[in-house]
């Protein structure tokens, strides 16, 4: 067995343990996002939306907060089964061991920069583990839906919005 495969198995096993722990943390049922989850989702959206977000720090921060609020709303509208799965993913990412071992992000989320987070996202995107690939896809879809669901972000893509008139 080569080193890569051993590493994969170890990560897989530890990931499984972490997942069950995160699942236990979330066993109480649906709830609002906590501050740690907001920070994590904001750091991830900051990387996913790089290029779409404004450069100026204050404005960028504000738009990220709106996007994270949009993600929270979207998650709250999903079926209890889906909410539970997403709660497990979020719970895993805000735990320091989960962040370090599975995402490979050494710093707390609020101290990360976009390139560090982008590297983690590319890693999951190209992972051989379906669990990580699908987790990446969930973060991707939630973030872009929250961003492009908002009319203030349509101008940049020249989408005029729905026709206005008498309906």
């Amino acid at each position, binding site marked *: 067995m080569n080193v890569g495969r051993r590493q994969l198995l170890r990560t897989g096993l530890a990931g499984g343990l972490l997942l069950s722990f995160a699942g236990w943390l979330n066993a109480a049922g649906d709830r609002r996002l906590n501050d740690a989850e907001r920070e994590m989702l904001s750091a991830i959206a900051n990387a996913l939306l790089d290029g779409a977000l404004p450069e100026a720090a204050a404005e960028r921060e504000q738009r990220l907060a709106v996007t994270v609020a949009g993600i929270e709303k*979207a998650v709250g509208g999903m079926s209890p089964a889906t909410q539970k799965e997403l709660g497990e993913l979020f719970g895993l990412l805000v735990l320091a061991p989960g962040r370090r071992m599975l995402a490979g992000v050494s710093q707390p989320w609020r101290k990360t920069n*976009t390139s560090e987070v*982008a590297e983690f996202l590319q890693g999951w995107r190209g992972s051989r583990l*379906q669990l990580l690939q*699908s987790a990446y896809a969930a973060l991707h879809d939630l973030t*872009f839906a929250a961003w*492009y669901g908002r009319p203030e972000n349509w101008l940049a893509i020249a989408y005029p919005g729905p026709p206005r008139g008498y309906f």
Partner: protein
Amino acid sequence: MIDPIKAGLASGWRHIDASTFTRNHTVDTDVVIVGTGAGGGVSAELLSAAGLRVVMVEEGPLRSSTDFKMLEAVAYPDLYQDSAARKTADKAINILQGRCVGGSTTVNWTSSFRTPSEVLDYWQRQFGLRSLTVEALIPWFALIEHKLSIRPWETPPNANNQLLAVGGEKLSIPVGSIKRNVKGCWNLGYCGMGCPTNAKQSMLLTSIPAALQRGATLYTRLRAERLRFAGNAVTTLDCQALQPDGLHLSGKRLQLRARHFIVAAGAIGSPALLLRSGVPDPQRLIGKRTFLHPVVISAARMPNRVDAYAGAPQTLYSDHFLHQAPIDGPLGFKIESAPLHPVLFSTTLPGFGAAHQQVMGEFTHAQVLLALLRDGFHPESRGGQVRLADDGSPVLDYPLNETIWEAARRALLAMAEIQFAAGARSVTPVHELANAYANWTEAKPAITALPLKPLVCRVVSAHVMGGCGMADSAQRGVVDHRGRHFWLENLTVNDGSLLPTSLGANPQLTIYGLAARNASLLAGELVSRTAPALP
């Protein structure tokens, strides 16, 4: 604009939002129908027309034109299963499916095709469905086409569709026109968010109002939990009321007792209800052979504006690639255009950061084709399986095997070639590892070499079919050619879950037609048995 649903409710239609229940209830009726989509809607209209008392059960909300704002952020959470992000168990396929009164007919893109004759021939050969001939079904399709104004679409196609015709003509690939179930359509392009002008002749605007007008009762926010049966007859449907959020149980219950029960909860919901109920299934067929028309997508950048969000979403199609091999040979595929709106497009596009932003910046120039793969005919294409999670909710396993990927690759190649022939500046298969290819010479070897795997190549579906398939015997089907369950005498399945294979065509008209036939046969039987004795 008049909202006919609001007007009907004001006139006294019986609609009960179960989230308002303050206690448990028990109701007796003639026929209970679970689901209000293509199958449930038609069933409700025809059975109420026969004078039977009908109760409809819908898990989603009742929404109508005044609620349809043409905004994805409003429509997806309100009108779709899992906010338009329903997934297969491994998350590799995203499924668009309605969850509101009218079901998917409220949010579909209006494409209407009769069941292809080669599909009916296959059903006769493989499943013994001898009575479902092309000739026998003509009157049912004609009836529905008349009722739902299914007609050729006379308005010129939008650029997103027209480019399919342009590319097809250059390559001698025949392209046809799609019939649509619309009346006085404004050609806006927002069918997927609920029709704001009441032009789409969905179940919400046609059959369900007809049933309510005749005194049928519609419960919304009510989940069908379990059928109870004694001997060979169903006695009761146990239902759970949802909270106003439409997601969580309120704790209040409704028991529905009836002479006959129709299950039309869609091809994920119907098998799940039968599995939860533990109905007799000695061959373990319930939930098996669930088909999706797995869809792969090709995005092109055109030199001029396409504005694929505007205008009727699907008006042209090509069946050229359905006819290259026998129906049970390598999978054929149907090519259509896909309307684009910011959320649907941005979430479907792979990648992130500057690269994603660059493609989004060309949103108005994007032209998108999709290929729906005809699953369920090839011996290695047996579809997926609906099973139950611990909480009783349905889970769909759909393995994407080599038979699917082989066809997906041909489809991505065919779509790219058509888009280049139509003048594309670049074409990008929707795939995590694909690039924007500048011409066919570059695209062909690149697509040929793309690794096709779950979660790497994007696969979506808007057509869930099967899971309670029809056949001539209980050895190979859950129900007979009329949707009647083989073991429980007063149980009918009447929706897309009847289909023993996929169709290779958008399924709404097939479901309407079969549902009309089955509901009429049932109505005849129920009414004659209870013909009132004259004084």
